[in-house]
Structures are given as C-alpha cells and as structure tokens.
C-alpha cells in the first residue's frame, strides 16, 4: 500500500472518485441510510426515537470496540483480544461496584479501575506484538486466552448484577434526551479531536510503510504500542456500554464480538493492511451490522434462516466495503 495514503494524487478522477477520496466513509453512510429506510419500510415503528435509542444502546459497545480495533488496524496490526478485554473489564467493574456498595463513588472508582485495566491489557498486547515482534494474529489470540482466563478468575459464572444506579443512567434520559445520545455526541467529539493528533498520523504512517516510517525517524515500536494501548482503552469504554446494556457481568460476553469488530472496520472502508482508514467508517460499519440484524428480523425472515441471511448480507457488504475503499484509494 506504499503508493496510497500520504501521497496526494493529482490525477483527475471522476466526481465519485473525488468524493470517495474526501469522504472515504461515504459508502458506509449510504449503506446505513439504505438499511434505515429498509427498516422503516418493513416496520415503521423501527424508526421511532424509542426504537433508535434501543438500537444505539445495544450496539454502542460494538461501535466502541470497532473504533478500538481501528486504531491498531491503522498501523497495520490487528487485535484479536479486544473482545476478551471487553469481557475482563465488564466482570471487573461489576464485581468492584458490587463489593464497594454500588454508590456513585463506587461506580466512578470502578470505572477508573476499568480504564486502567484496559490500558494494561493494551500495553501487554503492544509489548508482545511490537517490542517482542510476535505475529499479531497469533500473539493477540494467545493474550485473548489469557485475558479470558483472568475474567473467569474474577467472575467464574455470568450473573452478578450491576448496580441499578449504573444501568438506569445508561438506559435513562438526561434533560429529556436518552443518555446514549450524549455518549454518541461525546464519542464523535472525542474521535474528531483524536483524528487531529500526532499519534493518529504516526499510526497511519507506520501502517502505510513501516520501513519508511522508521527511516524518517518515527518511533515505530512506541507508536504501535500506543495503538494497542488506545485499543485497550476503547475496549474498556465498550465494556462500560455493554455493562449498561446487559446490567450484569459475563466473563465470556465479548468473545463473539472480536470478529464483528474486525468486520465493522472493513465495512467502514479501512484497509486491513494499514495506513488508510477512518474511525467514522468503523462507527458506521458497526451500525451496519446492527441494522442488518434488525432488517432481517423485521423482514419476517423465518427464525432458522435469520443467521444465514445476516451472514450473507454481512459478507456482501464486506466485499462492497473493500471494493469501495480500493476505489477511493486509487
């Protein structure tokens, strides 16, 4: 991908090509809009504020996990332990909140420790992949087994409830607006600020051409480690959302979400080979997965066929995401 990201292309492209180059997440946006329309067509009720709030609070965790994954993918790495980090932070904060009585102070302290835990897990991943130079796919699979074991140690079986204060806030309203919309707004601002930081530029440079980045004097190893740390932090934020949504702890809750987070990143048009992508695309990619699931449900698909239709639809939009991303880069 050496010729792609940082080098501006002055070749005259068609209108669509230029648009894609400026807004690479456009195809994902179109897909999300189309899926929303389909949803409304099959079930008008699914476009009410109430239904959209429900959708958002269910998929906010996946959105955050997809964003977490994006930062490592920027640098050409991958994190197969993101879901395991989510599980670990989920059980850790639930157990701590319960042990400390479930008051506001307990909740904030537990969340702070959850963030630290996510940071530590990300640091471990970064060290084994970037500093010890193990291959990212297998090394983060190994750490995911370790993190899952740790989660099982903290809470052997699913079920400890989160304090009411926590999930009531997450599922409730603030000044009449559902709380998840504040999360979404804060997230968008956070991500917009992040995208202007030197770190993100460095991650993209490393992913674009590691050797060139090194020769330009970039601290390649430190940058990749920071990418994994960011991934750990956002995985912890994802854990907060899943705790708010399910209101309980489950040591295996994130296992299935890892591959979905990778899929969401690809749906958003980012290149898995690194050096090119957008966080907004990943956010839309995660929403796409959620909306596909709900369209398939509202279409009245027989229950035994739902997984198959979802799988097929996701495969097709994955392909579309790759093709559109390539079009934008060429």
């Amino acid at each position: 991908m050496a010729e792609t990201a940082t080098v501006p292309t002055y070749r005259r492209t068609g209108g669509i090509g230029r648009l894609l180059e400026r807004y690479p997440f456009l195809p994902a946006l179109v897909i999300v809009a189309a899926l929303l329309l389909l949803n409304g067509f099959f079930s008008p009720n699914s476009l009410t504020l109430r239904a959209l709030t429900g959708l958002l609070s269910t998929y906010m965790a996946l959105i955050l996990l997809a964003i977490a994954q994006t930062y490592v993918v920027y640098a050409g790495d991958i994190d197969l332990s993101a879901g395991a980090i989510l599980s670990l932070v989920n059980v850790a904060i639930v157990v701590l909140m319960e042990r400390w009585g479930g008051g506001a102070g307990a909740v904030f302290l537990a969340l702070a420790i959850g963030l630290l835990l996510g940071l530590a897990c990300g640091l471990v991943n970064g060290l084994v992949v970037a500093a010890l130079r193990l291959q990212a796919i297998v090394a983060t699979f190994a750490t995911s087994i370790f993190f899952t074991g740790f989660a099982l140690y903290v809470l052997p079986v699913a079920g400890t409830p989160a304090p009411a204060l926590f999930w009531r806030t997450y599922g409730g309203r603030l000044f009449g607006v559902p709380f998840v919309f504040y999360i979404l707004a804060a997230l968008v601002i956070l991500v917009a600020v992040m995208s202007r930081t030197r770190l993100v530029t460095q991650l993209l440079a490393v992913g674009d051409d590691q050797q060139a980045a090194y020769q330009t004097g970039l601290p390649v190893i430190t940058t990749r480690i920071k990418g994994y740390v960011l991934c750990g932090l956002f995985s912890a934020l994802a854990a907060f959302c899943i705790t708010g949504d399910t209101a309980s702890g489950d040591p295996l809750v994130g296992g299935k979400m890892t591959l979905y987070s990778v899929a969401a990143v690809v749906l958003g048009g980012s290149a898995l080979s690194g050096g090119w992508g957008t966080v907004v695309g990943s956010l839309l990619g995660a929403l796409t997965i959620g909306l596909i699931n709900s369209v398939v449900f509202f279409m009245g698909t027989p229950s035994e066929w739902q997984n198959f239709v979802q799988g097929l639809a996701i495969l097709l939009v994955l392909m579309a995401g790759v093709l559109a991303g390539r079009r934008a880069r060429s």
Partner: protein
Amino acid sequence: MSRVVSFVRQPIVVALVLIVLLLYLGEALSPGFATGGQILRLLIVASLLGIVAAGQNVVILGGREGIDLSVGGVVSLSAIIAGNVMNGADGGILPAVAACLAAGAFFGLLNGLGVTLLRIPPLVMTLGMLGVLQGLLVVIRMGIPSGQAAPALSRFVTQPLAYGIPGIIWLWIVIGILLALMLNRTVFGHRIYAIGSNEHAAYMAGVPVKLVRIALFMTSGMFAATAGLCLLGYSGTSFANVGEQYMLPSIIAVVFGGTSLAGGKGGYTGTMAGAVLLVILQSILTTINIEESGRQMVFGATLLLLMMFYGRGRAMRA
C-alpha cells in the same frame, strides 16, 4: 558449531524437543501420562487438528496475507453432512465422503474466487464466509437431526487399524507424506512457494497465479471437510459448532511448525509437530487439577512463551 546451532534452531527440532520435554513434564505431574495408549489418544486428537492445519498451511504458504478463518465452519458443516448421509450405516460412508469433500471444495472455491477475482483480502473473505457457514449450520440443524457416525468410521478413528495404530493416524501420516512430496517435488508445489514469496515474479514467470490460489483455498476446504468427517467418527454424533475450536489453533499449529504467516517459507512436516505440541500442551493442562480460569491463563501465557522460539519478525534497520 554454527551448523549445530542452525540445526537446533530449526522450528521442527524446537517443536520435537519441546514435545519430549512436555511428555516428561506430563509424566512427572500425573504418572501414566506418557504411556503408549495415552500417547496414541493424544495423536488421534492431534491428527484432527493437524488435518485442518494442512489446509491452513498451504493457504498461508501461498502468501498475500493468506489465511482461512472459514475452516471452523467447514469442519462443523462437514460433520453434520456426514452424520446425515451415512446415518449410522457403513454403506453410507463413501457417499458421505463424496458429499463432504464436495461441500469443502465448494466453499473453498467461493473463498478463492472472492480473493482472486474481487481481490478481497483472505482474512475478510473467509471471515465473511465463516458467518455464512454458521448461519447455514443453524438452518440445517433446525431442519434435520444431527445424524450418527457409521460404526466403521468410528472404528477407523478410535480403534487400531494396523500395527496397533488407529486408521486416522495412518491417514494423517499419508497426508503428511503426500503433502511433503507435493510441496517439494511437484510443479504445483513449487508454484505455491513461487506465488507465496513473490507473486509478481511468479506471474511474470508464467505461473497461473489466480488458478493456483483458488486451488489452495479449495484444498483447505477439502482438508477441513476431511477433519469434520473424522471428527464425527471420533465423537459419534455432531454437535453445534464443533469446528470452531479448530479455527485459530490451526493457525497456531502452522506457526509452531515454522511456517511464516508472510507466506513462501515453511512446510507441512513442522506443522504436524506443531499440532502435536499444541495438543500435548492442552492435555497436560487438563490433567493438572486447577480451576478453568487458571488453566486458560497458563495456556495463554505458555503459547506466548513458545512463540518466542518461532519466527519473530526482524528488528527495524535503517
């Protein structure tokens, strides 16, 4: 001296030394661990993983970030197809083998077409295919019972066939020899290494790159299907998502065998040792009397430790 060092540092030698050490450790922790019958049982389990890893191995050798995440889905699908086609009757084995191999080849073909014609990265293509296969499994499972293994198939997998060794281990040895011959002695094998180490050069030299890559994914699908069939013989009936446990371990077995995930370097003999190593490690952990949480933490940490011996990337140089 340097010759000795380079011999000892070969991944397959590392794996074999580790296997012997782990067998000693297992015997020390729980006497009877390394007896003949126990080792045969370990080898049966290892052969299932090893057969899946054979397909994973050739796909990875073919380069361009080759990887097949759909193997887990194909293993499960094949087990349920086989169970229904034979349904406990020996006469149904041949049709079942044909049906499973056809299914494996079909999904491999789809993967290969997506990767070559549409140039979808293998990780993405096979990840999507995994989702489709898992959905398909739900459909099949709702419609029909899970089926049963034919007695002859179960005997083949679990009972001694010749010289006291079960048929599946013989099958694995034959696959190992055939793959080694194919990779080292045939035009096709050389083409795999060629496209894995430098696709453009291979193309310029007249290698039909796309056809070879499609063939690799079909091979992977058929090996996964074979493993699914044998898995049915091993467990007697098929369970939901039995194959999932093979997805990432098959990649680890390949890495432990010294094949580079970058492609073009490695072989299957090492992967066989890697599969045995992985299975012995898991088996030792189940014999130790600790909580599941501790077992998983030790397993994850040991995997990381073992990876330190294998194919670490090169340090950056200016």
